[in-house]
């Protein structure tokens, strides 16, 4: 059982380039999230999705886009990379049952370290 898989693990971009961070989960979780982690700043929510075809903005969505065409995949797109987007990006998933359980555990991938020069 792979859990949450992120690719690539490392990437260096030049300012203005575009790229997509891939995220896939095999746990049939309906909820998926993208966070960025900067030193001393904890994790900040970029975008999240409560199911296929549904996405919404988190705390820091500017400069990013997402899509959720399937339950398994939740790619994060950077259109015009900027140095401020240098960070470690984490994808996570959780299961929310029909009863509306609100204490669900987040399962994280290993992260994608992005440097923009």
């Amino acid at each position: 059982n792979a859990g949450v898989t992120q690719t690539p693990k490392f990437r260096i971009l030049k300012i203005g380039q575009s790229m997509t961070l891939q995220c896939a989960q095999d746990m049939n979780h309906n909820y998926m999230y993208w966070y960025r982690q900067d030193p001393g700043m904890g994790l900040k929510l970029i975008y999240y999705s409560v199911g296929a075809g549904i996405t919404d903005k988190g705390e820091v969505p500017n400069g990013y886009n997402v899509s959720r065409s399937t339950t398994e995949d939740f790619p994060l797109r950077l259109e015009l990379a900027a140095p401020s987007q240098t960070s470690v990006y984490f994808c996570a998933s959780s299961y929310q049952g029909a009863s509306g359980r609100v204490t669900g555990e987040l399962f994280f991938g290993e992260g994608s370290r992005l440097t923009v020069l």
Partner: protein
Amino acid sequence: TQLLEQSPQFLSIQEGENLTVYCNSSSVFSSLQWYRQEPGEGPVLLVTVVTGGEVKKLKRLTFQFGDARKDSSLHITAAQPGDTGLYLCAGGGGGATNKLIFGTGTLLAVQP
């Protein structure tokens, strides 16, 4: 904006010592989770507390949720080098989206 402040930011101790990490907010949360993150990996859930005043124990780790559900603490007894890592608290607002607000983190180093 909901914020979770953790203290201390960094902690370096010797094996066998006890320590406490604090997670404070001015906001009320419906639940509070603690995660541990090791270098090069994603955070892993340690515990979830949901009731004000709740205390949960996980071997040498004791977690407490404040009576007003605005703060939490993590106490480690007789720390071991394997406890080394980044400890993150995360508050849940109780909505259907399960969005969590993460704290600033406490980096713990336990020297053998």
